[in-house]
């Protein structure tokens, strides 16, 4: 394990797990779990070391409350590392609800962006020579200028977050890969220059470059360009945020692992040995720890990848069906599967976390959706806290511990084993 200190003195015991609350309910549960629970004498969820909040969720989640929260026992949330993800991918492919939240923000000011998007959405591109994405690049990209970047950075610095993420557009398609990567490089360059001069010349904050991308864009041709874009300046953290599930395609997963390995090698040549992050992922993150990733980000009890079907559902499909993270199978299971399994054991939960072992049965909790969704989030945080504790403190080296985790006979998650040999 690598103990590291951020510039502001906060400590991390890497590899680390960060969680990403996205709703006010996530936030309330995170606060209460950290405050109330904890088997060990420290209490809380000490092995979840950080919190990532997307810019569009800051108000909903009550970011100030998270930053200021003190626990009854154990480390307070305020002691954890707090990061704001500018998450500009939301404006290109988020839900209507989240886009609207962003567009209503005054600082950074999204008004012009909202107007331009409104115009774009009113156009039928079928009979036009220009594509919608080209029009977005022509109209929207120029609005993501130095003042927009400055306001986004200022927002983070004013909240005293621990790692300042320089905003950039997502990488979403091979058709416009060059244009998108050029814009990312530009935004990184401007953001870096602003941080060096007017925003943080005394280097009181950690700085981060983050690229949000579809994993299908990672291949032998694009890896060098993505890597070069990430490492173009020396910052304290480099990050990749996945916008879709690489598990669906073995080749995508292989390319992702290749990329992480190359980034890890490149990182060793750099003076300050920056940390590598992989956000918006789940159990894949444990495998990524064994390929150079230091910090992994998980949403709370939610499948990370959501496709906007055009319906205005604020919650992804997994939320609507209320899936439970099964710590022995290492996957999320539907309520029906959980119920069927629990039936054989007097409806007891297949988990020894404090939430699951407090006497309530599956059938008692599953009937009430509100109670169920609150419970499964609480369980998720406690189960993950314990998983990370076991993996990091195992006597075996990390790779073997993670291999043993996925190779467990009860595990239904063997996708990553071939990367852990």
């Amino acid at each position, binding site marked *: 394990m690598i103990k590291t200190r951020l510039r502001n003195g906060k400590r991390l015991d890497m590899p680390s797990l960060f969680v990403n609350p996205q709703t006010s309910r996530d936030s309330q549960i995170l606060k209460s779990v950290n405050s109330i629970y904890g088997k060990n004498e420290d209490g809380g969820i000490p092995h979840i070391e950080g919190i990532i909040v997307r810019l569009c969720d800051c108000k909903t989640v009550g970011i100030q409350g998270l930053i200021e929260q003190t626990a009854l026992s154990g480390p307070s949330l305020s002691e954890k590392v707090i990061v704001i993800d500018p998450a500009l991918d939301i404006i290109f492919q988020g839900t209507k609800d989240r886009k609207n939240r962003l567009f209503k923000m005054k600082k950074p000011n999204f008004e012009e962006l909202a107007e331009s998007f409104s115009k774009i959405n009113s156009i039928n591109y079928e009979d036009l020579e220009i594509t919608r994405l080209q029009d977005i690049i022509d109209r929207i990209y120029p609005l993501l*200028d*130095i*003042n927009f970047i*400055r306001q986004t950075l*200022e927002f983070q*610095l*004013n909240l005293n977050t621990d790692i300042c993420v320089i905003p950039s557009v997502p990488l979403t398609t091979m058709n416009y890969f060059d244009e998108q990567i050029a814009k990312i490089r530009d935004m990184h*360059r*401007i953001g*870096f*220059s*602003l941080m*060096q*001069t*007017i*925003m*943080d*010349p*005394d280097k009181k904050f950690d700085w981060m470059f983050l690229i949000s991308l579809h994993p299908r864009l990672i291949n032998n041709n694009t890896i060098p360009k993505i890597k070069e874009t990430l490492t173009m*300046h020396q910052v304290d953290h480099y990050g990749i945020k996945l916008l879709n599930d690489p598990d669906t395609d073995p080749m995508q997963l292989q390319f992702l692992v290749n990329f992480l390995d190359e980034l890890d090698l490149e990182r060793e040549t750099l003076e300050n040995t920056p940390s590598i992050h992989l956000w918006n992922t789940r159990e894949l993150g444990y495998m990524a720890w064994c390929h150079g990733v230091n910090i992994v980000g998980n949403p709370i009890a939610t499948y990370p990848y959501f496709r906007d079907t055009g319906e205005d559902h604020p919650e992804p499909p997994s939320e609507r069906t209320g899936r439970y993270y099964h710590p022995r199978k290492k996957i999320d299971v539907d309520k029906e599967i959980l119920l069927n399994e629990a039936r054989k054991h007097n409806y007891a939960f297949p988990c020894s976390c404090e939430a699951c072992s407090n006497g309530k049965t599956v059938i008692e909790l599953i009937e009430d959706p509100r109670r169920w969704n609150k419970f499964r989030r609480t369980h998720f945080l406690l189960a993950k806290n314990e998983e990370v504790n076991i993996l990091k403190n195992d006597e075996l080296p990390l790779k073997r511990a993670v291999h043993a985790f996925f190779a467990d006979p009860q595990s239904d998650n063997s996708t990553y084993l071939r990367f852990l040999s």
Partner: protein
Amino acid sequence: MMEIKIPEILEKKEYLKLPPNERERYVREILRQVVAMNPLGVTVSVLKDELPFNSRTLEKHLSVLTFTNEIYTVKIGPNSLYLPNHKALHHESRELINLKNREYIVYAVNNRLGEFVLIQEKKPSHSNRMDVGGGILIPKESFKEFIDFLVKWSDEYDKNST
């Protein structure tokens, strides 16, 4: 021609988009960094060749940096050579105190003109960042005398106030 090191700078059209007060801070910080990166010193004419700022802007900000004792000048013929005090700073000697939302930082400095103690004041700018407000350089051999002078003044002031 003298070659100097410069940090990565924004394109002119980019930095001109900044609000006026941020633009001022930007130019000053770039100059601070350029002088720090060139311990042998820089002149206005060299800076004018390498940076996208005019002479008037350069001179204005260089004089502010001189006033706050972050840099100092040495006359070489008709030219002024601007040298970094920060390069001469002994960072291990740095101590900081926070008093009523301002920071006071003390450093030991050793430059071409001798050994000094630099006391720097930083105060919050409009955007809540800390900016250098001023600085004084006291010759090191006279520093104790200076402290005694301040203590005596403070005691007299308290006596006269009560």
